[in-house]
Every structure is written in C-alpha cells, then in structure tokens.
C-alpha cells in the first residue's frame, strides 16, 4: 500500500471513529441503565484508543502506540471493571434518574453539538487529521458538561467527567501531529486512574453516610 493512500484512508477513518464517539455519547445521554452506561463509556474509550492506533500507524510513531495501549488497558478494561465492581458493592438502583427526560436532553445536546461546530470553525485550519475532529471533541466536552448537570447520582457524574476527559484527549489527537510527549500522556493516564479511584472512595463513603448517591442531597453548605 502506498503511503498517500494510507493517509487518505485514515483521514476518513479518524473522523468516522470520532463521529461514532459522539453517537455513543448521545446513547449515553438517552440510556437510563447504569451498567449499560458504563459499557457505553467503555465502547467510547475503545474508539478513542482505535483513533490513537490509526494515528500511530500513520506516522509510525511508537509513543502513540503506547498511548493507544494505555487507553485500552485503562479506560476500556480497568475503569469499567472498577466501576462495575463499585455498582455491585454498593447495590444501587439501576435507574440513573436524569432531571430532564430523554427527548429534551437530546434536543439540548443537538444544540450543544451545533455550538461546538460553530465555535471551532475558525480553527479548522489547525487540524492535521480529519476536518471535523476538533468540533466533535468540543461537542463531547459540552455534552459531557450537560451530562454532569443532568444526572444526580454521584457515580453517573464520575462517568460524565470521564467522557469530558475523552473529549479532551480527542482534541489532543485532532490538534497535534503526534499527540503529546510521552511523559505528559503517562502523567494524564496516571492522574485519571487515581482520580477515578479517589472518586470511587468518595462515592462509597457518601453512600454509607447518606444511604443514597443523590448529589441533590448534598446541600447543607451554603453562602
């Protein structure tokens, strides 16, 4: 296969996979079952890992392969396993109890995606791979914020935070040629793992103290 053909294919494959990430994000917003939410997050991370692998293959950049593998191990295997275990250990209801129903959430997220596209239009010239990847990354970020507001259970807020993080990592792939230096990627990877463990500890303690994971009940501190 000639190098230009590979580049051509991957410049189509990467936006396709990025779009699929957004589709998964929308499914996540519509879906009310907690365990399915965790699975959807794993699928989204798998797509991110795939994008990193395509970039690495394209530029023959070994350190991006490391990123792909780390994303796979961390976000596709380890974190979903950890979150699953937490769900079983604290025995919570499966329903995530969103504040807004699915149709209105979808409308808001469509508006947020459009906003992402219009905001990034001046910056499309920055992108190396795929024209709309940055717009999708921003859409993931914004819908992640919405997901955070719309869900009241502590554990679903953790998931929302992780999708925001996926959006930022997608932006890193979209904006830079070879991704970030390896030491930075390692630092981010390590931080995300520790962050979820810390959040898990807090979720567990909140559940013990409040007999609930509803963050709406965390309203004592004001002013």
């Amino acid at each position, binding site marked *: 296969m000639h190098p230009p053909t590979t580049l051509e294919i991957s410049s189509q494959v990467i936006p396709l996979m990025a779009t699929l990430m957004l589709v998964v994000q929308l499914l996540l917003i519509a879906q009310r079952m907690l365990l399915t939410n965790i699975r959807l997050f794993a699928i989204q991370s798998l797509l991110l890992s795939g994008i990193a692998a395509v970039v690495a293959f394209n530029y023959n950049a070994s350190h991006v392969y490391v990123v792909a593998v780390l994303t796979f191990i961390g976000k596709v295997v380890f974190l979903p396993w950890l979150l699953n275990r937490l769900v079983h250990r604290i025995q919570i209801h499966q329903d995530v109890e969103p504040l807004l129903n699915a149709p209105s959430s979808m409308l808001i997220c469509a508006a947020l995606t459009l906003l992402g596209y219009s905001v990034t239009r*001046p910056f499309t010239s920055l992108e190396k791979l795929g024209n709309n990847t940055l717009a999708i990354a921003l859409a993931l970020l914004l819908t992640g914020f919405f997901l*955070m507001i719309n869900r009241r259970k502590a554990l679903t807020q953790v998931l929302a*935070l992780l999708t925001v993080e996926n959006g*930022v990592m997608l932006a890193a792939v979209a904006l830079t040629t070879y991704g970030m*230096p390896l030491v930075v990627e390692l*630092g981010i990877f390590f931080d995300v793992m520790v962050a979820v463990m*810390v959040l898990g500890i807090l979720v567990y303690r909140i559940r013990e*103290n409040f007999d609930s994971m509803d963050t709406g009940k965390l309203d004592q501190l004001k002013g």
Partner: protein
Amino acid sequence: MLLLTPILLVPLSVALLCLLVPSRRVMAALGVLAFATTLGLGIALLHEVLARGVVREWSEFLSADALSAWMVLLISVVSLATSLYAGRYFERDMAAGVITMGRVREFFVLTPLFGTGMFLVVLANNLGVMWAAVEGTALSSVLLVALYNRRNSLEAAWKYVILGSLGLALALLGTVFVYAAACKSHPDSLPSFNWSYLMSVARQLDPLQLKLAFVFVFVGYGTKAGFAPMHTWLPDAHSEAPSPTSAMLSGVSLKIALYALLRFHILTTACLDGGPDAGFSGHLLLGFGLFSMLLAPSFILVQRNLKRMLAYSSLEHMGLICTGIALNSPLTIFGALLHMGYHALTKPVLFFAAGNIHQTFHSLEFRVIGPGVGKVLPVTVVLMGLAALSAVGLPPFGLFFSELTIISGGLAAHQITVSVVILVALLASFCGILQQLTRILLGARKPGDHPTDARRSDGVPAMTLLLGSLLLFSVWLPAPLLELMHQAAAIIGGKP
C-alpha cells in the same frame, strides 16, 4: 550537587515511610523533618538561583528560576508550620474520639504527598507535567478534606473534586492548545513542551490559538485558585477540612494554582507583545481579580461560620494578588509577590486558632462559640487577634506594606480607578473581619455557660513561629530574599 531532586524526593519518601511507621508521634516528627529539610534546601536553592540564574536538573526536566524558588520557600514554610501543629491537633482529636488511627495515618501520608505535588508544580519545566502535578495536588487534598467522614465534609469534598476536575479538564484542553501552537510553528518535528523552549519561540506562536488556550487555562486553573465566580468550592472545602489542611489549602495551594496560571500569562504576554491584544491575559486577570475582591467582603459580613469567613478572606487576598500582577508595573508585581509571602505566614495562624476553637467548643458557628472566647482560650485568642490585625492589613504587619506597595504602584501607573476599587474592597473586608471577630473573641461569656477546663495553649509553637517570622520579615527583608523577589517580579513582568 542536586538540589531540585531532593526537594521532591524527601517529602515523597516520608509519605511512603509513614505508611509503615506504627506510631503517630513518629509520623508527626517525620513530617516536620521533611519540610524542615525542604526549607533548608529551598534556602540553598535561593542562593543557587541568585548565583546561576536558572537551576536545571535531569536534562531540563526540572528547572527552577527565581519565581519557582520563591514558591518553594512558601510551600516549605506553610507545610512545616502545618506539620508542627498537626501532631498535637490529632492527638486531641483522637482523645476526643472523633477520628480513628487509620484516618490520622491517612493525614500523615497524604500531607507530604500534597507537598510533593506542589513542589513538582513549581519545579516542572514541562507544562503537561505541571498540569499532572496540579491534578495530583487536587486528588491528594480532596481525601484530606473528607478526612472526618462527616456528611458536611463529604459534601465539601465532592464539590471540590467535581468542580476541580472539570476545571482541570479545561486547563488540560488549554494546555493541549498551547502544545498544538508549538507543533504548528514547527511542523516537522515533535517539539519540546518545556516552558523554557516555548518562551524562546513565543513570538512565532499563533496569537489567536494562544489567546484561546489562555481562556481555557484561566477558567481551569482559576477554579483551582478560587477566583470568583468559580470559587464556590472554596469556603466549603476550607471550612470542612481539618484545620491543618485548611491552613495548607489557603496558605499555599491557592497560590500554586495561581503560579500555574502565571506561567501561561507570561507566555501569552510574550507572544502577544507589541500586537493589538498585548494586554489580553492581563485584562482577564484584572477583571476576575477585582471581582473576587469586591465579592468577598459582602460574604465576610454575612458569615455565621468562623472558617468560612476566613476562606472568604483568602478569596479577598487572592483577588488582590491577582490584581497586583495584572496591573503589570514592577512595583505592583513586587507588591503582589510580597503579599503572597506575608499572607502565607498569616493565614495558617488564623486557621490553627480556629482549629483550637473548634476542638474546645465542638463547633465553628458564631452563635455557639461566642462571645467571650478570650475568657476560655486566652493564648489562642491573643495570637489569633494579632494574626487578624495582620490579615486586615494594619501596621506593623507586612500585609500593610504589601497592600500599600500595590496601591501606590497602581497610582503611579495612573490606574486611579483600579486603585480606588482596591482601597474600597480592602476597607470593606477590614470592617467585616474586625466586626465579626470582636463579636466572638471579646466580651463576657453567656450567662449559664459553664467555664470549661480548656484553658490550654495548644499549637503555640507553630503559631508563634509564623507570627514571629511575619514580624521579623515585616521590618527586615534579607538582601538575598529581596533580590530573589525582584528577579521573580522581573520574570512575571516579561523582562528575562
């Protein structure tokens, strides 16, 4: 001789050691030892920086200039005082049965880790590593905030970690944008992400992209630095954390986030210099700094909780530091750095005293503890009163001089409106804090209130150490320290 590496390794190894040590006393002593060592190393670093300019280690992975060295000193002093105070504090907590040995161990392991994270923030040359270190400080401190495992402390910790993580995700996006700008200016190779490298190519970076990056970084690190209106986590976390942790959060952690922001401010200013948007980042800092300063006094006046009030006072001081830097004249920047130092010596004393009051009255609510705390805890109240006079900016304490420096610098730079706004905000918080504190500290106890046997004078060594050095440095700044601060001010002002 290596200087920067031991500053990171000493607290880290103490944290690991505390996992194994069986005795609480030994853990406390190790904490004191660790930060006394880093203070010594910090002073050595000060002289090294003055002699050589920039100290680099591990092929530029770690690098320290005058600004970093100044921050190392601040972190060491506050952490040292905190470790001194924490030993007795947790002894009393354990005697009262509000905390288990496991939690105490958690504190003595996490506090040196928190310190290591802060040291890494100021010593890392790589902006991405700096981000990871800031996230590390947030993660280690969130478990400290939740240490008491009460409902309120869990609520505070949850708000802190969620807001902090969202903010830091935005800061990461901004950091990615800066790196992308560097990639664009050198498309053929993987550019270095070192701050020293980025500064050398600052003029070639895309201004539009850097401005966008700065906005993200500002919101991100600004949340962690507690600027209004992203400050909502700050009073919760400061009031619910154990008092030693409150002292570290308020005394240095906020300033560390500001330091991270400043590095981007310096880079953005260097890139936009001479262009149409030359003061872009400065204007953002000025707006949010003034807003924080103006918002804080009104919250101070309505507070019913001692530590929440102190947290809003920190918001006021952070706003002033930020405003001083944004005014961007050598005098105001110098004043802002001075203010950082004096605030770091003052605020922990107030939080330590609040810790003593909390342990005596089992509450921080004004209506429960006041009036007449002075009758029960005379020593604590005298020290707290002195620190409060310093915090509101009365002479002979240093904060008076640094505030005066910033205001006169502002007037000299013809920023009349800004200077007047600063003055008004400072006066308002002056009245607020003094009015609230006199109400609870002075006067007679309520009738029917049983005089407790508490007349203790706990935490006096840590408090007198801080107040003593505050008084000393208020009237006499050693020449090397003065030179270091002038150099740090020149770095922020954009003169290498």
